[in-house]
């Protein structure tokens, strides 16, 4: 039994803790701001991505389920929170309608659609952040895993799922703001979303969510269930013949992962100030896979690291050469797949340690989708 916080996890959590303290202090605590406010939200966004990457690594790295639709769960969590933020605007919208969000007034809605009911309550929205992606993953997984859809075929249908959702959310008739999505948020639980203190608070919450997500994922992968997941990844039919109902295990981990992605989305929405159907786009989901592969598949910490590194590189590069980013991302992925099969984490750990890399990194090298 390995411990919950091994060396790798310990170093990462320590780093995360320092960041969590230093960033808000640098932003709020000093006279001349060492950390500009926009950087706080930017870093908060990175942490949401990191949590999303951890969620994907849990299913892909440990159970071999290459989901190319995890962006959908992230977006659903984001929409659930966005719906609450829309309701919180109240009569401060452009049309000053106390019940209907601006886009509904604009589209001549008479009343709130039934699925918007309850979202004025924060606790209800929080439950939905978990339930909406969770139920989708459960139903989707139930059919897919029971029919023994695996490998490339599963990847393709997850991709189709997020694409279908994107098209649906683009439609005005869906009642989620169509192609503009949900935006113009004012405050959450009475805290002004534009204020530095709220932004710092959201940043800290994102860091806590990431730490919690990492520890939950670690606890799952450390348990006997985690060993079953790895068994499924490496020899699915062997696992069945030993008596494990493989579809139940996949369903469990897929649902947990989707809920984790939903939480990441919920924290993302208030920090970037908008959630729109673009979040469902297939390219977004593929990018998550790149984060995980780049950081080090099957390591959890590596996935988080990969997400932060790529997102930071994206911020910098799009600042310098906007049109080059997409090529840089592609090149990066190819480079990492060929020259760094164990990801950035594998390289770092290889440098600092004489003994051979740990086995789950080797597993990542023998990666089978």
């Amino acid at each position, binding site marked *: 039994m390995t411990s919950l916080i091994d060396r790798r996890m310990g170093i990462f959590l320590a780093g995360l803790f320092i960041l969590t303290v230093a960033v808000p202090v640098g932003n709020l605590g000093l006279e001349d701001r060492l950390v500009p406010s926009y950087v706080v939200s930017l870093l908060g966004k990175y942490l949401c991505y990191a949590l999303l990457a951890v969620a994907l690594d849990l299913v892909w790295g440990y159970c071999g389920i290459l989901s190319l639709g995890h962006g959908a769960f992230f977006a659903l969590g984001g929409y659930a929170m966005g719906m609450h933020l829309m309701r919180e605007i109240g009569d401060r919208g452009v049309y000053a309608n106390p019940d209907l969000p601006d886009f509904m007034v604009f589209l001549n809605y008479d009343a709130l659609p039934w699925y918007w009911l309850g979202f004025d309550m924060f606790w209800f929205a929080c439950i939905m952040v978990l339930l909406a992606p969770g139920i989708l993953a459960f139903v989707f997984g139930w059919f897919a895993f029971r029919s023994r859809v695996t490998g490339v075929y599963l990847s393709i249908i997850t991709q189709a799922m997020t694409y279908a959702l994107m098209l649906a959310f683009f439609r005005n008739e869906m009642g989620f703001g169509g192609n503009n999505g949900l935006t113009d948020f004012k405050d959450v639980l009475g805290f002004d979303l534009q204020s530095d203190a709220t932004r710092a608070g959201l940043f800290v919450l994102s860091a806590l969510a990431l730490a919690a997500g990492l520890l939950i994922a670690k606890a799952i992968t450390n348990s*006997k269930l985690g060993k079953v997941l790895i068994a499924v990844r490496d020899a699915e039919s062997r696992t069945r013949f030993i008596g494990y109902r493989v579809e139940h295990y996949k369903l469990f981990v897929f649902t947990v992962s989707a809920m984790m992605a939903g939480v990441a989305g919920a924290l993302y929405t208030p920090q970037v100030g908008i959630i729109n159907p673009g979040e469902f786009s297939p390219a977004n989901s593929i990018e998550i896979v790149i984060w995980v592969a780049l950081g080090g598949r099957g390591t959890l910490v590596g996935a988080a690291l990969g997400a932060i590194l790529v997102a930071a590189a994206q911020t910098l590069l799009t600042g310098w050469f906007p049109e080059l980013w997409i090529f840089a991302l592609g090149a990066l992925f190819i480079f990492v797949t060929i020259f760094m099969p164990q990801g950035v984490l594998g390289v770092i750990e290889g440098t600092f340690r004489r003994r051979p890399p740990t*086995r789950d990194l080797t597993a990542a090298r023998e990666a089978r989708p």
Partner: protein
Amino acid sequence: MSIQLALDGVTRSFDGFKAINNLSLTVEKGELRAVIGPNGAGKTTMMDIITGKTRPDSGEVLWNQTVDLTRIDEAGSARLGIGRKFQKPTVFETQTVEDNIALALKDDRSVWATLFHRRSTEDTARITDLLELVKLTDHRTDMAGDLSHGQKQWLEIGMLLAQDPELLLVDEPAAGMTDAETMRTAELLRGIAGKHTVVVVEHDMDFVRALNCRVTVLHQGHVLAEGSLDHVSANDEVIEVYLGR
């Protein structure tokens, strides 16, 4: 003695080719049985049907004279007490030898039970015993993927025994083993028969002779002959389709 497994009039075709053709076969409880036959005789399909991987087109497969095996899946058959060893050794390569056995240990297989599972001292003791039995004690903390081919075969047999199944279906256990290992495997299987029912599919005649048990000869999906090895070896048909070639 009561009947452990009974196949009656089982037929299964793939694209018109009858892999199993009106196959009837009974295995007694505690029996050691060898199934031989040329390539394509339907040995693997027969195992697939017994373990619920493949459903027959027609016919009956009864477990302990009561349970209909054609209605269950692989995990269900394992839970009933049917253990299967594949032709190509399949172990969990990126996990330790110890964990491989631990995963196979007879226990509650539900998601919640495994999530909150704690390994008991009895479990550990049982793992130790099993590793001793399959001579892998020195490799306990090694990765299963680093074992030799023969050792993987043994590990898989160990995993099979860890499940404590009533019936062991063993597909070509001696493949890739040295002569000494082959004989030791035969000895091991003879040793566990009686307490468990064992059905061995094998090509290696020396191994079958070493098993010293009743032999069923399959050909084109049905039973061609049954009896002691000497008895079936003397059968003209058997000589023609199999041994004589």
